[in-house]
């Protein structure tokens, strides 16, 4: 049945009914086009928002605040701050945690950074080495802070891209000294990050900060990563750590403001789930748009069958079998949906590419596009749907009785 004759027969029929063929094609074209645009946009939205998760996905942040619940004989309003021994306590008691680090934020404004005649108020962050992993720093020049810097109290700094641009203005910063409130720090590395807000700062060793700007043993916020633990495992671990720290600092475990935590993985997974939901939603809308297009094809094919009743009657009278009539109609629907669907696919993907290459990436939208598998899936869907769209009209056509069709009006 798939011999060349059938194709020629159908193509010549389609050629001689151009408007009808075009209208039928357009509904499928449009369905596929919209499906592609919707899926691609959903993808772009997801990529844009997910891009904001620039820190390590498995990072956990913990900070101290003021107590609000009296506990173990202490009054409320007591300030809780983490010190060196808290870092030691965590690293001794919890094997699962990696890249444990403190982080003291020395706000720009009170700290002036300068190089030669260039000044700037940048954020200074005193950290342990692990924080550089948690922050997902992208080193562009030199090196990161290392353990020797910590142990030997080296006055070194890793500077962000914007700091580099503003202070050094094209000069190679590596090996130069920046002054932070009059204290010279040797620049050992330059880093970049996806967010501009995280590249206008300098990182210096925690041990140095504890001797210069913040004398003492405070470490500020504690950050660490937790390997490839699941959301549940990470939540359990964070709860456990919080409980231990609460005991150590003698605060009520329910005191939310005394001990704060942020579990990036949980947030990340929630966001992922949200986008999964959005994608399913978008997919369903697209799918039904496509269905509408196919119902259109089916509908037009029904009209076609009605219009061609006499022709089908003639064909039957001169020896067309019901199967050949079914084949004729289904193949016509299949050809129309395949060609139109292919062009819809092409147009949709082209438009997405055009948007992707001409629209600047934002925090909400970047790189829209559908992956190859979805496109192939859609193509297969079109073929199946084309046959389904042709089936009902084809069956009706095959049931046409020649004597009824040929009756003279």
């Amino acid at each position: 049945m798939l011999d060349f004759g059938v194709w020629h027969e159908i193509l010549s029929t389609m050629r001689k009914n151009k408007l009808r063929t075009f209208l039928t094609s357009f509904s499928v074209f449009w369905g596929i086009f919209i499906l592609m645009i919707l899926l691609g946009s959903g993808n772009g939205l997801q990529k844009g928002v997910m891009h904001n998760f620039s820190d390590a996905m498995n990072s956990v942040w913990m900070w101290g605040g003021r107590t609000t619940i009296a506990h173990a004989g202490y009054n409320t309003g007591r300030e809780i701050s983490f010190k060196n021994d808290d870092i030691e306590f965590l690293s001794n008691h919890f094997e699962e945690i990696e890249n444990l680090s403190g982080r003291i934020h020395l706000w720009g404004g009170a700290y002036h950074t300068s190089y030669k005649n260039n000044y700037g108020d940048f954020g200074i962050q005193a950290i342990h080495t692990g924080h550089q992993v948690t922050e997902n720093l992208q080193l562009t020049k030199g090196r990161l802070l290392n353990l020797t810097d910590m142990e030997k109290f080296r006055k070194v700094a890793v500077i962000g891209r914007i700091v580099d641009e503003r202070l050094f203005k094209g000069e190679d910063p590596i090996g130069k000294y920046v002054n932070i409130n009059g204290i010279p720090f040797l620049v050992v590395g330059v880093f970049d990050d996806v967010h501009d807000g995280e590249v206008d700062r300098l990182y210096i060793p925690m041990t140095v900060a504890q001797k210069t700007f913040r004398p003492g043993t405070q470490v500020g916020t504690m950050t660490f990563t937790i390997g490839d633990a699941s959301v549940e495992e990470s939540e359990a671990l964070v709860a456990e750590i919080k409980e231990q720290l609460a005991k150590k600092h003698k605060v009520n475990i329910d005191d939310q403001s005394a001990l704060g935590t942020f579990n990036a993985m949980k947030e990340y997974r929630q966001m992922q789930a949200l986008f999964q939901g959005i994608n399913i939603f978008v997919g369903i809308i697209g799918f039904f748009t496509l269905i509408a297009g196919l119902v259109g094809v089916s509908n037009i094919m029904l009209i076609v069958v009605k219009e061609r009743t006499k022709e089908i009657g003639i064909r039957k009278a001169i020896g067309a079998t019901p199967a050949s009539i079914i084949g004729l109609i289904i193949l016509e629907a299949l050809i129309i949906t395949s060609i139109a669907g292919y062009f819809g696919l092409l147009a949709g993907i082209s438009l997405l590419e055009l948007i992707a290459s001409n629209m600047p990436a934002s925090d909400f939208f970047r790189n829209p596009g559908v992956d190859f598998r979805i496109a192939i899936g859609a193509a297969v869907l079109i073929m199946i749907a084309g046959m389904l769209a042709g089936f009902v009209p084809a069956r009706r056509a095959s049931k046409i009785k020649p004597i009824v069709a040929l009756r003279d009006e």
Partner: protein
Amino acid sequence: MISISELHKSYVTGLNSLHVLKGINLTIEEGEMVSIMGSSGSGKSTLLNVIGLLDAYDTGKYHLNGTLMENMSETKAAWYRNQMIGFVFQSFNLIAFKNAMENVALPLYYQKVGRRKRNKIAMEYLEKVGLADWAHHTPNELSGGQKQRIAIARALISKPKVILADEPTGALDTHTSYEVMELFKEINNAGITVIIVTHEKDISERTKRIIHLKDGLIEKEYKTKLNLSYA
């Protein structure tokens, strides 16, 4: 060629049953040229549809070329129509978007003959009906007589045993009608059985045998002078 006995056919529409053929007995030999006459409602078209396997009958027996035609599947009926029978209709029933040659070639398409070959054969048949020059014209560019000759070429191309013509001259003027009848006579002379349904006396007189139908029964039948002159 065709042998019919005690053939009954009713049309049921809703609660009403219309008894159209009320026991037809008829034999048509190979090579005959027969006209079936009768007023409208006499059952002549129904009889032709039954003979042409376009419609099923209720009771009785119908043998075509020695084979009993009953409990036909659509596919089987389509095969017999394609192989044994050629149809000619009052309103020509050509496919409007196909040209004359493609229309004539269509039965061969259903015999799985390749396109080039069937177009070549179609040209031969167009030549036989004198319309080779019109091969690439669509039906709406042709006159009634030309259309009917193309329809006849189409009916002949599958080399049928029987040509069934339902009022073939009904839409034609007298002069053209006679030309078409001449064509039928030539076909008949080539040995093909021709059965023509008509209500025009002068047309029926150009066949060799006339069967009169009235109210679903054969009223009378007789051979024409034409037949006698050949005998």
